């Protein structure tokens, strides 16, 4: 009755000859959930025996009896069910029969894979089993299309990721993400090692559309290889904090990859030339530009970007989002917000002065979200009111260690009204004054927002 299970399923020594719970649930819910209903199972009727016994399977009691029918289920249905199961459950299910095992190895199920590389000494999370990695490289590497690596803070894990990358010679990836979950461990690798692994993918894939390589030692020559092989397909490139790339290196990408729609990089790579290149006629509309402005040493000097370059960007891609994260010391803001800038999302990760926030109100007409982690001890009353008046798109604001008088805050909310969909204000920010105390301000604010609102509270313990 039951076919003998092949020994190639590697990670379970005890084979349970029954349908795993989740599998049953997935089968049971078939047809009842919209998102499953769209699949190829539509119009395919199960074999008669399967249909006959279906009611019985819902009771889940007499499993042995229905076993035969389970194993004869059409492959496409099984494949569809498998797609909704986590790998572990699929592996369990693959032990049912040879037929199920075949489905387990179908390319459709191996298009997408997330390698989790963690060392027990540095992470609490489990890692992808080395045997599974071997198996994937051996049997499924040509099926892989959407791959990401999650790597903990240890150099060994980053190295392991590079080893896998360098073995992906016969695959054609569409997306690749290198994600450091704790400290940026790719930065600790020898640059040449990392580059040679990464270029294996660049050279062999030829149709990469998304690439997330933040916090890695990628450099100009490797970006050239990327461009040479993937210029027609590249749509997304995220490379914040890649210190070995120069403005010329990223310019080369922008010049050649006309389909690039999303870009994330550090401010030191941003140039007028880059913006002009991204707004050239050949280039598609940019959707998203993310800039990190980070200071490594206090007192660092930053270059300026011409207003005309930003204007060209807005003209070419009128709807593009400009997201800027600032991690600067207060005295380094000199070159910023002197002229109009089309920024839509602003995050100030460190203390920012009243003066700079005043300039934000003057020069950021497209601002949608403003988050200020800290400010001095002087209330930000006029600044907020100016922002409410001038930034007519503003819909989200977050304030951390700042101060605002309750009256000014109410005024701000009144001016913005219901478009303020996110309003995250720490309780200590609001300074009671003659008009509003802490106990009644949330009513007043709720009234203007049209929904119940409270300030964010922190536990006192």
């Amino acid at each position, binding site marked *: 009755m039951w076919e003998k299970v092949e020994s190639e399923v590697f990670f379970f020594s005890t084979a349970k000859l029954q349908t795993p719970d989740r599998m049953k*649930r997935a089968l049971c819910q078939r047809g009842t959930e919209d998102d499953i209903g769209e*699949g*190829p199972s539509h119009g395919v009727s199960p074999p008669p025996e399967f249909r006959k016994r279906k009611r019985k399977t819902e009771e889940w009691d007499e499993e042995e009896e229905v076993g035969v029918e389970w194993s004869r289920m059409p*492959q*496409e249905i099984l494949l569809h069910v498998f*797609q*909704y199961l986590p790998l572990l459950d699929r592996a369990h299910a693959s032990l049912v029969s040879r037929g199920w095992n075949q489905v387990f190895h179908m*390319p*459709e199920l191996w*298009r*997408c894979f997330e390698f989790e590389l963690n060392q027990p000494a*540095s992470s*609490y*999370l489990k890692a992808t089993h080395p045997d599974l990695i071997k198996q994937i490289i051996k049997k499924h590497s040509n099926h892989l*299309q*959407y791959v990401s690596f*999650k790597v*903990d*803070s240890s150099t060994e894990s980053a190295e392991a990721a590079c080893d896998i990358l360098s073995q992906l010679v016969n695959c054609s990836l569409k997306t690749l*993400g290198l994600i450091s*979950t*704790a*400290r940026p461990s790719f930065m600790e690798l020898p640059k040449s090692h990392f580059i040679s692994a990464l270029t294996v993918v660049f050279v062999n894939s030829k149709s990469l*559309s*998304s690439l997330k390589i933040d*916090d890695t030692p990628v450099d100009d020559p490797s970006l050239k290889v990327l461009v040479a092989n993937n210029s027609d397909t590249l*749509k*997304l490139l995220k490379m914040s904090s890649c210190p070995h790339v120069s403005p010329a290196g990223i310019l080369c990408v922008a010049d050649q990859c006309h389909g690039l*729609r*999303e870009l994330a990089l550090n401010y030191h790579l941003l140039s007028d030339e880059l913006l002009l290149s991204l707004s050239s006629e050949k280039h598609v509309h940019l959707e*998203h530009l993310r800039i*990190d402005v980070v200071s*490594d040493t206090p007192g660092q000097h930053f270059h300026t970007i011409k207003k005309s370059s930003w204007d060209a960007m807005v003209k070419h891609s009128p709807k593009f*989002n400009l997201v800027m994260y600032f991690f600067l010391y207060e005295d380094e803001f000199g070159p910023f917000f002197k002229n109009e800038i089309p920024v839509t*999302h602003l*995050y100030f*990760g*460190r*203390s920012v002065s009243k003066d700079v926030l005043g300039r934000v109100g003057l020069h950021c007409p497209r601002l*949608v*979200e403003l988050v200020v*982690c*800290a400010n001095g*001890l002087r209330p930000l009353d006029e600044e907020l009111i100016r922002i409410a008046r001038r930034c007519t798109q503003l819909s*989200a*604001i*977050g304030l951390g*260690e700042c101060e605002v008088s309750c009256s000014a805050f109410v005024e701000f909310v009144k001016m913005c009204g219901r478009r303020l969909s*996110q309003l*995250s204000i720490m309780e200590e920010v609001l300074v*009671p004054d003659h008009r509003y105390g*802490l*106990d009644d301000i949330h009513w007043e604010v709720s009234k203007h927002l049209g929904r119940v609102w*409270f300030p*964010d*509270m*922190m*536990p*006192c*313990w």
Partner: protein
Amino acid sequence: MKRDGVETYGFEARQSGLRLHDNPALQEALDGADTVRCVYILDPLFAGSANVGFNRWRFLLEALEDLDASLRKLNSRLFVLRGQPTNVFPQLFKEWNVTRLTFEHDSEPYGKKRDATILKMAQDFGVETRVRNSHTLYKLTRIIKMNNNTPPLTFKRFQVIVQMLELPKKPLPTVTRQQMDCCQTGVAANHDEHYRVPSLKELGFQTDSLGPAVWRGGETEALERLKVDKKGWKSRFERPDVGVASLMASGTGLSPYLSFGCLSCRTLYYRLRDLYMSARKHCTPPLSLFAQLLWREFFYTAASNNPRFDRMEGNPICVQIPWDQNPEALAKWAEGRTGFPWIDAIMTQLRQEGWIHHLARHAVACFLTRGDLWISWESGMKVFEELLLDADWSVNAGSWMWLSCSSFFQQFFHCYCPVGFGRRTDPSGEYIRRYIPKLRDYPNRYIHEPWTAPESVQKRANCVVGVDYPRPMVSHAHSSRINIERMKQIYKSLSSYKGLSLLGSVSKIQEEAESAVMTDVSPQSRISNSSFHAGRPDRMLPGPSPSRKRARSQELLELTEWGNEAKVRCCGSANRENSDSSEQ
């Protein structure tokens, strides 16, 4: 009741009810009894374990001494017994012919388990038991019931429910001499030999090199603190102005006394209420007046049915965050060697005195976890458990989850800067100089970041960074940038929010969870929910409905973070475009 019956009123080995005022369990013990004994069981194995530090033991022993002294005045004594409760109880039941056992209700999962064992033992010996609630203001089960049988996960929601409840029960009067006189205690001549409060030395602590206690344990001291002049109390009615003075241990601090049960929370509640009403012409006090008590209550409620409340793994309300394991960095933090004077001063104060201001707790907790070191909140919680006088299990774990943005839908955008926050709170560096005397001679300008001082200044101050005082162990700008990205990554993967807004993902999760509590209450859907989570620890937060989650788990790398149409989905769409490849 048998004439030879003995009523025993049992205190437990953990902090609870170390007082004679508002003590319903003791009142129950006295009810019609011939004899009453107040018993405290001390587990000596517990003393040796690392998770309760010296200051906490000292406080406990002082509290026991104080209780014993108060009982003496009532012609009675405290019976301190050493041993495991499971061994001690049967022996006592027999020896003293116990007919009734009363104790304070413990809402925490471990306490409940332990109490259940004791109740079972009492039942086996035919001993009547009475358990009374007095460690929290409200009956926590009632709050949970009113929130559709789940503990509220936001403080707002909790407050809404509390406002629907009647006021907490009034505190009971202190036990009087008359009451005690009605029943004897039967103190033997050799009482001290068997039942006296042990000294720290006996518990194996080195006591020679220790300074005096900043916080004196005991009910007497707690009640003394309640009496302080009205001016001291007034500050509680207003917006707290946090300065250096509030960072220091003060004569009005009460949290350790609440934690050990030297002070009844209900007594404190009514004291606050009365003071407010007399000061504000009988206005009903706002909830914010009781903030500290309510936070405590909130965490007690959240933890009451969750035995894994104090850990990340397997804790259904905790976001699974890939924290780094780094024992070396953890030790630097715990021992105050981070190189950030503000952080080091706080950790030193905690170690020396056992108490730090709540904003100081925020600062060091943020630094250890999501702010700078990216180390698990569990490690920090354990250090606090050892050092902090008021480290109640629920409140400690809950606060750590809160501060590390691991639960309770906290916005994570704001990280306390280990330099800037210190400078705001302690501009003159007075606090730092007190706890890190090495930095005493630094000018104010540099005291929060001594590594920026010119070498000549460092030499003049007799403290060279890198030699006499550590260099900062991380670059805050660098690590906070990385960490905010990590948090974003985690919260994005939990939420169905796809926009660019940094604030959007958390509020979306909260919305979804709150609507889940309101609508999804059938036990069946809950079961399927949790079994779906099992094995997928990264998606454990109560949030999107199971079907949505299942669909989401298919996504791997999104092409756009906000556009829905270009989203890369692995199997579903791939399957359709390449349906022929299955022939291979």
